[in-house]
């Protein structure tokens, strides 16, 4: 614990350098890579929100894609039916998407937060499927399985149809979200969430209203999910029930586990790896699914703390071999 605290500024520096690298290198690559990076960044906001629930509050949710969906569908419907959100009001739609995600989470939270563990998983799965069902059947609103096409990207002084410009906008929103979530988890509220993750009963005894803490965390995750949805709608240009189906929620969860839960950026790393494998490697070789499968299985077996846990495990492994070396020296010294 003490070692990780002292290396904290170092970790922050690493993150800043990585973000700067992304911002500088990406526009120089070809348009397809820019598109992939933009998609990964937009989805990463949802993944980070899942991490807040899983890594920081200890709640594994299988229904977070529902909030991405409400944000995405709201954007699509406003843009195609009412022509809202294609100019400066894009920023309003961004906030509206977040608010919608938060509102939905507030409603679902009443049902879900009373449960824990496996039951929470099941309830969130069921609620996510409700949203999928609505997206699929409410043809007049959502276009059913045909989905809704967003023909244009917003233009406000700058034209977001330009891939590089859009990348910068998404990158900006991503950085702001990362900062916001980082501030949240380092705040006293965030610390209480960690406490609830570790020992909820003890937190209750200490006088914390754990239900309220979890509920608020759920709403915040929903808000970021909705935000992610607005950006996601514009990257793909089409919103369909596929965005809210179970595999999408599972994806987000898996990305967090792959990268390392409880680290925020772990989810982002996981997101880049999965998108890179699924959408870039798949254009190069047909056996990309095996690679993805091996990555998942190997992570669960050998790196349960995710990729971000590698430095810690290395440290432990080195400490253990160091101790063994000491013990052997002592044993050989004594006759």
């Amino acid at each position: 614990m003490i070692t990780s605290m002292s290396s904290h500024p170092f970790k922050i520096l690493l993150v800043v350098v990585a973000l700067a690298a992304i911002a500088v290198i990406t526009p120089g690559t070809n348009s397809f890579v820019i598109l992939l990076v933009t998609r990964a960044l937009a989805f990463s906001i949802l993944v980070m929100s899942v991490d807040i629930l899983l890594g920081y509050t200890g709640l594994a949710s299988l229904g977070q894609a529902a909030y991405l969906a409400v944000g995405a569908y709201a954007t699509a419907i406003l843009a195609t039916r009412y022509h809202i959100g294609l100019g400066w009001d894009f920023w309003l739609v961004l906030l509206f998407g977040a608010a919608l995600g938060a509102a939905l989470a507030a409603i679902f939270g009443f049902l879900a937060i009373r449960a824990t563990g496996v039951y929470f998983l099941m309830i969130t799965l069921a609620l996510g499927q409700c949203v999928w069902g609505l997206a699929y059947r409410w043809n007049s609103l959502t276009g059913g399985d045909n989905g809704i096409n967003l023909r244009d990207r917003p233009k406000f002084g700058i034209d977001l149809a330009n891939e590089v410009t859009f990348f910068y906008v998404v990158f900006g929103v991503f950085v702001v979200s990362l900062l916001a979530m980082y501030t949240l988890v380092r705040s006293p509220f965030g610390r209480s969430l960690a406490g609830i993750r570790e020992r909820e009963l003890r937190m209750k005894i200490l006088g914390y209203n754990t239900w309220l803490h979890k509920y608020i965390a759920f709403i915040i995750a929903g808000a970021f999910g909705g935000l992610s949805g607005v950006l996601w709608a514009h990257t793909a240009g089409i919103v369909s029930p596929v965005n809210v189906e179970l595999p999408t929620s599972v994806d987000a969860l898996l990305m967090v586990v792959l990268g390392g839960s409880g680290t925020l950026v772990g989810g982002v790393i996981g997101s880049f790896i999965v998108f890179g494998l699924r959408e870039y490697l798949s254009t190069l070789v047909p056996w990309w699914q095996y690679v993805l499968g091996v990555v998942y299985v190997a992570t669960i077996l050998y790196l349960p703390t995710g990729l971000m846990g590698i430095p810690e495990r290395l440290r432990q492994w080195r400490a253990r071999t160091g101790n063994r070396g000491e013990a052997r020296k002592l044993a050989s010294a004594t006759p």
Partner: protein
Amino acid sequence: MTSTLTRRLGLLLGGGIALGLNATAGAEELRIGYVAPTTGIFAQVGKDMVDGFQMYLDEVKNDFGGAQVKFIVEDEQAKPDTAVTKAKKLILQDKVHMLVGGLLASSGYALAPVSTAEKVLYVVPVSAADDLTQRDLAKYPYLIRTGWSSSQPSHPFGQWACEQGYKKIAAIGADYAFGYEVVGGFQRAFEACGGQIVQKIWPPLGTKDFGPYIPTIRADADAIFSLMVGPMSLQFPKQLAASGNKKPVIGGGTSYDEFVLPSMGDEVIGHVSTLQYSAALQNPKNEAFVKAYRAKYGKVPSYYSETNYTSAQMIHQVMKQNNGKFPGAEAFIKQLAAAKYDTLRGPVTIDEMRNPVQNIYIKKVEKKKMFGYDKDELWNTVIKTYPNVNQFGQFKKEEFLATPVYNRDYPPCKFCN
């Protein structure tokens, strides 16, 4: 330092390009980007699509009128946003001259705006969503369809049903847009000639147990019209027969097409369906195609393979007209739309809304030997041909477009008690 370096690099690069251009001055390359689901639940359909197109390329040794075809296949996993990503990769990274493919209606709707935004030709062999070439046509100037529209075969089929003397028909179709359009087209046509659709049942896409639906089929119906896809096509006739059904069964093309027919049993003998293709078409081109396809891929070709083979043929014909030089997307569409084609499925032309005008075949499932094969197998024998059917069928284009697109509630079920 950097300026001399960049200048030297520039010279090298320029020299390289010049050499490269000289070297390839002979053969032009035609890059075709193909989008199909090669993984996921539709992987087998995607394979059929790719195999159909590839078979034509192999027959002409990748030579389209002098241009060397580079065929790049990308996996859309039957997800619209993956389709968009892959299409953008094909356009931006591989710099393809045209996009072909897309399986589901949602993929078609996802790829069409990409073609508009990037000004790249998009040829649609499979995706049958009506509005792509109807009410939404103006949004997609670079789109042209070489396959069919969902309701296109249903319009003459409705008329055929009246001629058989059916008065009341119960319809059961997969609960999604494709289902609505096929059933809707049939209902419009059948009711226009005096018939009545007395029931519309919509089992969800992917239903395997029709137990809740079959007993509700109205006893006073003269026949049952079914629109099934994939595994539903296999299960529904079996369960219907097991329930003791005696009514004649008719259906949309995907309920009985060659994708599922070999796996079906004798319960479908006598069932009638409609499509712009049947593997049992008795013409020399089709016979050669079926034999060659079966020898190469081990199965009778379905319409997924045929439509891609035919689309490749149509593209080849236009490229021949241009001596192997790609004339640009707009000119290509004009030429593709203006030409007449003699294809496996019969004569094909393209209407002014960029959808094919072609024969629609009414086909009946029969067990017999065909094309010299020595086993009795299930084949979709053609019992009637309606020539020159366009996407509006027997209806006037303006009236047709003034009504909404076929959906769950349109046409309304006036005779459903």
